[in-house]
């Protein structure tokens, strides 16, 4: 990989994904029901892995996700597991999940994802 940043455009079935090496942020926004979730998320997983290995700096995950299909749920859980591991090794990790206040269910689902994470994980309703 030559570029340090990741920039995947949003489609009707996949979220917009930006990973910024300089800022140490990963941002995902939109719906996620890709036909091939491996194809979509592997670059993200690789990027996070490389950042945690090489950057030695805090990493922040920002999520504005609405609907996730099953394989996307799995990929996101893998990413959260990686972050949790980095957190226990002492890397500064934080996450935020923003959702529309009108859709309280999304907030409840974010809570489910948060369950096994011990790093700071904010869930905030947008009004």
């Amino acid at each position, binding site marked *: 990989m030559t570029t340090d940043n990741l920039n995947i455009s949003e489609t009707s079935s996949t979220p917009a994904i930006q990973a910024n090496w300089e800022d140490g942020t990963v941002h995902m926004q939109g719906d996620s029901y890709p036909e091939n979730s491996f194809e979509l998320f592997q670059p993200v997983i690789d990027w996070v892995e490389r950042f945690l290995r090489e950057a030695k700096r805090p990493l922040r995950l920002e999520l504005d996700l609405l*609907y*996730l*299909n099953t394989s996307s*749920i*799995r990929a996101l*859980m893998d990413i959260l597991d990686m972050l949790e591991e980095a957190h226990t090794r002492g890397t500064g990790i934080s996450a935020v999940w923003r959702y529309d206040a009108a859709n309280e*269910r999304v907030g*409840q*689902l974010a809570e489910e994802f948060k369950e096994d994470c011990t790093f700071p994980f904010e869930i905030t309703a947008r009004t």
Partner: protein
Amino acid sequence: MSSRPDDDELDQRIETLLRAEHDGNPLRPALEALFDRYRTQQRLLDRLTRISDHFQQAERDRGLNYADRYQRKVRQIEKIVRISDRYQTMLRELNDRLHLISTRDELTGLPNRRYLLERLDTEISQVARNGGTFSVGLADIDHFKSVNDTRGHAAGDAVLAHTARCIQDSIRDYDVCARWGGEEFLILFPQCAEDDAFRLAERVRHVVEDQTRALGLSPAITLSIGVTEFQPGESLDATLKRADDALYRAKEAGRNRTVGSAPDGA
């Protein structure tokens, strides 16, 4: 691995014997060689046992590690399933809501025109397949425009909602009334010939009028209704056109009445 006490005792006895001066005893070199071989064997056995124990321990750790990883995977899959189910529930509820929104008239809560058109298509298919018949009644609130003009749109909306409730309460469970547009309602009377539909429409008309009189509304809300029966082979448009014509005649004849589409209908 330590030897048993008996072994230790025997070892000591032999060591004592070998230390003592027994030159010339032909058994001594043999005993010495044998004891030496025994010692070597003993050390070998100890080492073998230790190595074997290590292997067993490693295998055991590996097994536990697998079990641990397996448990973690199971937990992860259970969690994925749980979250996935909740997403599905969310989508299903959204789907139900969209379905409701797309088939209901917001103001009156009645089924909307789109819903009834689909129902009428189904009804026509059923009549074509199984025989039987059905009728429709097109009802229009009399002088509705003047309600809107003199008492405002909020009052007009209230009249529409009230009329819708009256109609809904006065039809049979399997009849369907939809808000057809403006102040028009279309009622489907399944398995009903025109004369029966006529009687049912009259009941609706009376209920609406009586209810509004009971509320003290002045002038009372009344309906004009055109009723017609579906004719096998004709298009839905043809049926609706006949109901519309009958409604027109009801208005022409002075309103607050039901008119059928039969040649001598009324």
